[in-house]
């Protein structure tokens, strides 16, 4: 887990600081120096438009990580909000939200993600919408179940008996207690969403050119991978590494945040 955190932090720092660290601009085309192998000027070589692969990897990581992160965070926020409201207040709110959760859980997420992204057309916004719509229910369900469990927990009732208001109980007790499971779900989801974005890119539903994004880069490189395998291997390995690190961290968090009674936070 420590290794995973270190590696991920390094990659993320590198990518987020792309404007500072990338040796070239990601869209600096040079048709006289296409598909050149690794060299001193271009550590990983150049792509089919003579752009520096390393720089594009760094910039691409920025897009991939930011998009995945923002998307997952939005999903999380929606799930947290609906789940906590449903779980805590119960009644009609719960029935309504639970109905929606059951509906969205009863539908095959990937197919719907594809259909929605496909309908809305290529671009970051469609990916965002498609992922949020198809993933929020998982968060909401976990959050709702946890909130219900917490709400029923004697200590919450005890707090109510002590005279604590709903706001206090939700904000100071329920939500902080939800963070553990939600964090685990978040990391595990983040990995999946990175892969989903890559898959959508592969199908041509990725970011708009000339944005570098790992999934798009793999897709662009497909035509060239025999002559210049690194064009496809490098972004592929990047996705694999990030997804693996994120998953490892999620696993580690799950073990670490396991409840005192040994109950695993999530299946």
């Amino acid at each position, binding site marked *: 887990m420590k290794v995973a955190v270190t590696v991920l932090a390094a990659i993320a720092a590198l990518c987020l600081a792309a404007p500072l660290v990338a040796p070239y601009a990601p869209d600096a085309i040079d048709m006289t120096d296409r598909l050149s192998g690794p060299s001193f000027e271009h550590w990983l070589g150049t792509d089919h438009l003579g752009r520096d692969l390393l720089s594009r990897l760094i910039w691409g990581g920025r897009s991939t990580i930011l998009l995945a992160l923002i998307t997952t965070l939005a999903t999380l926020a929606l799930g947290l909000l609906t789940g906590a409201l449903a779980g805590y207040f119960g009644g009609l709110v719960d029935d309504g939200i639970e109905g929606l959760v*059951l509906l969205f859980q009863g539908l095959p*997420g*990937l*197919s719907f993600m594809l259909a929605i992204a*496909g*309908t809305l057309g290529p671009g970051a916004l469609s990916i965002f919408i498609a992922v949020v719509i198809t993933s929020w229910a998982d968060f909401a369900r976990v959050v709702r179940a946890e909130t219900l469990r917490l709400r029923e927990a004697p200590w919450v009732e005890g707090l109510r008996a002590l005279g604590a208001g709903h706001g206090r109980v939700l904000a100071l007790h329920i939500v902080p207690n939800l963070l553990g499971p939600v964090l685990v779900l978040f990391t595990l989801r983040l990995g999946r969403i990175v892969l989903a974005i890559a898959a959508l890119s*592969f199908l041509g539903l990725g970011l708009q050119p000339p944005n570098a994004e790992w999934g798009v880069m793999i897709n662009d490189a497909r035509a060239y991978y025999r002559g210049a395998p690194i064009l*496809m291997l490098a972004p592929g390995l990047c996705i694999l590494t990030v997804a693996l690190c994120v998953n490892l961290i999620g696993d580690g968090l799950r073990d670490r945040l396991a409840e005192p009674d040994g109950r695993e936070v999530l299946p």
Partner: protein
Amino acid sequence: MAAYVLRRLLLAAPVLFGATLIAFTLGVVAPGDPAAGALMQSGFDAPTQAEIAAMRTELGLDRPLPVQYVSWLGNVLTGDFGTSIYTDRSVSEEFARRLPTTLALAASALVLAILIGLPSGLAMGYWAQSFGDRAGRVVALALLSVPGFWLALMLILVFAETLRWLPTSGLGSWRHMILPALVLSTGMAALLMRLSRAVMLEALAGAHITAARARGLAEIRVVLIHALKGAAAPLITVIGGYFGAILGGSVIVEVIFAIPGIGQYAVEGIFRRDYPVIQGYVLFTAAVYVVFNLAADVACFVVNPQLRLGARVA
């Protein structure tokens, strides 16, 4: 039993209803005027406003949305998903023709995933914290982290092109199914590995296992009957649910391996903005998903005496 299945079916109905709503909404929010699209497809290069208006009336697009929905739903309920704007063929017939292929693919993937994931996960759970367990957990995570299309291209390169053990693409014999099913199964195999490990760990930690051992029962019986029979239900539920994930994942696999299933059709539909096809895809996968979840529930019902008898007692 019948009552249980009926109750489950009742619960599935709103889900399917929701799916129709989503499918219909997709058709509505999709950019592009379906009437103009239909005209252009049928050979009008630049349809006039009048022609478009006539087409809108013909397609019923000038009615209020709820009315359109109800009439569309009526058609859907009778199995009529409309005709493809692009090929003018019946969407439901096309899906019916392609569904067996996708189901065969998904079923092969499911079998592979179970064959790979279940025994290894159970073994990892039984010998938890052993070297094999640790290695297995990393392998499972790696499998979860590998982009499917990347794996597909690599497998074709190695097993079809270089070694020539298996065909690159297409349908035909069972050998054609191996690579696509393998790609499709990786994610699920990994999840199953993790889940069955957790299930095994939890089952072995149960007090009834210690009690069974204290009675001197053979270890194999303790593990297989006392621990696993009870753990079967969550595994079955999850396997039923994964089927939906496999359906979604089949899209990429079908495109790469040239398998004419519903996923390939959906991608074509998406790129041609053939919205009856997209709607049909949404509804078909939802229906299949619901059916498999239902089947999993029924299977749980059969293996779990508490549900079986509890239902009778209540």
